[in-house]
């Protein structure tokens, strides 16, 4: 199956769901599930077929010659894990919003528009096209949050969109700089990567592109949209946000900023590393102080994205491998955590305030254990994907000449902090009697997980385990593609 199918399926899904009558929520969700699963299957098929090097399923049609834009699609080892995680999260997002009734047709229209945009970014081999998809992914988020969201949804939605858009404005400026600097009249990655870019240009353009993309990756100090956005978003949207949209930024940083501007990357890498470590530590510490369960997960996302950024800043093969792996890993785990907190637990307790939870371990044992597993995965317990990823990142950072040892130590401290807040919050949520009074929450057992929830959890947790146990499944595929980038980095003077 051709990789473009993911894209086409998503937009077709958006159209199909959008045109269905609003009242038929049942039919709509099955249609949505069908489209999402087909997308996942396509992505899986691509993954199985991928030979391990080069660009697969490449197509290249002329589009707007006067702007140098082409319809160039294709995927390599870097996009592959991200395609997979997008497919996974898209399916699970549908599963975890199984009960959605209100304006279901519109919901899935926006949802699939977002998913399609994400697929598009990962598949684009042309920067203009990439940017187009990048922006396509911006707007649906607004509506997803503003219509179906929760806490301070207007504020959060607007903030998120404006941050994203401001980031993409920077990206656009950077792209134009790249285009005119390369003087090759093209936006295709292929040709731009062969163009010679002067060092001063790279020094200027790199921060534009990197910061522009990193806004979406939740880089400190531009991360503030992330917690509020994640918290306000409806479950499926926050899963997508945490699972894949943040990866869009990181992917852009890697693919465009680092991949095309090696000299710029080398100059700015120490700064990026510093910010990344701030992300890790700051995110973890703030998560520790949160009382709203969803905010905890939100800040943990910020912290985890710090590892991605740190991996990127290493500019070494190991570190970049770790970064991509972490993108996958956090995509899966972050989505699972948001799903559990936002949908599974919230739909039963109707609160997300930790002090109102009352001995949940006894009252929803299965869910609690699933969450504990997910939490362990999140803090990087060996056997889960997070472990492999963070290990790679830290190893890469240690080897990297651009990341100082002190920062690596700090990042290590951040790992400890992650352990800390995860355990503390698990305790607060599940093993602690109610602290705040006044909650009218009933005593006794909650309903068990529904089939859809079980399927979703199984999918996400399973894939995390699978990659955790056999990281080479993914790492092997990405080595060749990453090596290209690393080689360019090493060659660039």
């Amino acid at each position, binding site marked *: 199956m051709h990789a473009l199918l993911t894209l086409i399926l998503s937009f077709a899904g958006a159209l199909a769901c*959008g045109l269905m009558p*609003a009242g038929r929520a049942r039919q709509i969700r099955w249609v949505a599930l069908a489209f999402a699963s087909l997308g996942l299957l396509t992505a899986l098929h691509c993954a199985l077929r991928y030979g391990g090097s080069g660009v697969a399923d490449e197509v290249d049609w*002329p*589009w*707007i*010659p*006067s*702007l140098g834009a082409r319809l160039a699609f294709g995927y390599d080892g870097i996009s592959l894990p991200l395609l997979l995680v997008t497919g996974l999260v898209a399916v699970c997002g549908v599963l975890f919003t199984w009960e959605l009734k209100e*304006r279901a047709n*519109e919901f899935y229209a926006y949802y699939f528009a977002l998913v399609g945009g994400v697929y598009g970014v990962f598949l684009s081999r042309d920067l203009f096209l990439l*940017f*187009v*998809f990048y*922006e*396509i992914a*911006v*707007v649906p988020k*607004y*509506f997803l949050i*503003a*219509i179906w969201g929760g806490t301070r949804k*207007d504020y959060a939605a*607007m903030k998120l*969109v*404006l941050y994203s*858009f*401001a980031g993409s*404005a*920077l990206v*656009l*400026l950077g792209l*134009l*700089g790249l*285009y*005119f*600097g390369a003087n090759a009249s093209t936006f295709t990655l292929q040709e731009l990567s062969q163009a010679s870019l002067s060092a001063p*240009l790279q020094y*200027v353009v790199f921060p534009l592109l990197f910061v522009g993309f990193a806004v979406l990756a939740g880089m400190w100090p531009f991360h503030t949209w992330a917690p509020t956005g994640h918290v306000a978003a409806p479950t499926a949207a926050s899963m997508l946000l945490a699972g894949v949209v943040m990866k869009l930024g990181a992917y852009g940083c890697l693919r465009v900023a680092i991949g095309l501007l090696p000299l710029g990357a080398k100059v700015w890498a120490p700064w990026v590393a510093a910010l990344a470590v701030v992300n890790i530590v700051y995110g973890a510490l703030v998560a520790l102080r949160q009382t709203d369960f969803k905010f905890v997960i939100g800040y943990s996302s910020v912290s985890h994205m710090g590892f991605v950024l740190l991996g990127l800043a290493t500019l070494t093969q190991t570190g970049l491998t770790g970064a991509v792996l972490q993108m996958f890993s956090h995509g899966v785990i972050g989505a699972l955590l948001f799903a559990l907190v936002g949908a599974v637990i919230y739909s039963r307790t109707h609160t997300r305030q930790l002090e109102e939870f009352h001995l949940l371990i006894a009252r929803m044992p299965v869910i609690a254990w699933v969450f504990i597993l997910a939490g362990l995965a999140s803090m990087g317990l060996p056997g889960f994907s997070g472990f492999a990823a963070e290990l790679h990142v830290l190893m890469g950072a240690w080897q990297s000449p651009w990341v100082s040892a002190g920062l690596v130590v700090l990042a290590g401290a951040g790992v400890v902090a992650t352990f800390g807040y995860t355990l503390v919050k698990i305790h607060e949520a599940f093993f602690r009697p109610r602290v705040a009074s006044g909650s009218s929450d009933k005593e006794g057992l909650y309903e068990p997980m529904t089939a859809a929830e079980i399927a979703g959890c199984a999918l996400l947790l399973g894939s995390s385990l699978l990659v955790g146990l056999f990281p080479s499944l993914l790492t092997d595929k990405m080595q060749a593609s990453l090596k290209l980038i690393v080689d360019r980095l090493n060659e660039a003077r």
Partner: protein
Amino acid sequence: MDGHLMLNALLPDLVVVAGLFLCLGADYILLRGRDVAERHRLISRIASWTLICGLLAGLLGSRDPQLLQLQIGDGQLVITPVRLLFKLTAFLLALVVVELIPTRPATSGHVSEQYALLLLSALGVGFLATSHHLLVSFVALELLSLCLYALTALDMGRRAGAEAALKYFAIGGLSSAFLLVGISYLYGVTGQLNLGKVSAYIHTLQHLPPLLGVAFLFLLVGVGFKLAIVPFHLWAPDVYQNAPTAVAAWIATGSKLGSTVLLLGLMLPGFDAPNAYSPVSRLLSSGLAVLALISMLVGNLGAMRQGNLKRLLAYGGVASAGYLLVGMVAFSDASRVAVLFYVLTYALASMGAFAVVALVSDQLGRDAEIDDFRGCWKSMPGIAALFLIFVLSLASIPPLSGFIGKFGLFFAALQPPPVPEEGFGGWSWLVAVALIMSVVGLYYYLKVLRAFLVTGEPALPPVRVGTNAWVVLVMLAVLVVALGLWPEPLLEWLR
């Protein structure tokens, strides 16, 4: 002057003239004393068929290569593919406006006059688009403006409408005077009325006479008023708000198309410069850059504070004029194409947005605040979806045509100048400001969309939208989307 050829070339316009007499005649003779709604029905039918016939005549003419490369009377009537396209687009937009004119007027018993003035102003835009001659351009601009003044005051029952019309008229008259003085100075310096010859003459000058600078200053002021460029924009919000919405739509689109062509013509000495840094183009581009900067700032920041949808769109229009100038400052072929493309796509999307506002708020009987549109997703899902497309295009979100248009502008502005030592990015600071302002733009456009698509219970009962209106709305939406997905044919045509 070859009369026969000229008649052939003017066939679309003659069709429209005939049609407008038909409108007036039918109303005055056949329909005397009939019910207003019935008159509206028939006259609007005549008007739209007139425009369709005009469009067809234009399309037929475009098959004749002789008519597609025509220059009559020292640039008085120049037909090129691009100019023809603009003229026909104007007719098309007028066709949309015909469908938007409310058929149950609250106050005015005048029916055919509205359609006649609309047709006449469409003629004005058409002449403006096909003129390369200062005199004809001025007369055509007046033709257009006078119609707009009168149309603005259509709703005589409303004080605010009359006030806006008066304001528009006064400021517009002043701007015409500026334009005319500018034209006469330009003529005084160069002795030419043909814009191409004016430009050629300017390039033969060893040093620029100061009078030329004054002339361009006046011309910029004059056209600036028409395009609502800051600081000449003050009429726009009031007029957009208080004119009947259909008229506001026409002011925002048709007038803009024509004025842009005129501005491009006036800026020809910049475009014709042997290299982009001849003294005259330096003069012009720095002037344009300043205007672009303040237009973007005032337009976008002003729009943020508006509660009235039409005012917001007016400020958005001011901002878009700013973007337009950003694209123009580079004075390259790319920027010409970009400006033309942008203004076309802006006109389409803007017309769409206004059309929706017109159809929905028509029944409101007062100024529509943004909040009045809340819950449209529920009462009128189709309309709301179309509105989403139009507004996102205005906010330049890909893959809609507005994005390609704006990207083209920035692309043109950043193109490195031919003189290498000027360094990277001719106007990167301007583009940077424009990008920041685009973020602001998204903010207020989202605010509008929020009312339409996000919030609660409908404030308005569903509006019955006629088949014709649906057809034109969907046509606009398809154009907006298609030009975003596949802009190349149009770009090629504009080149």
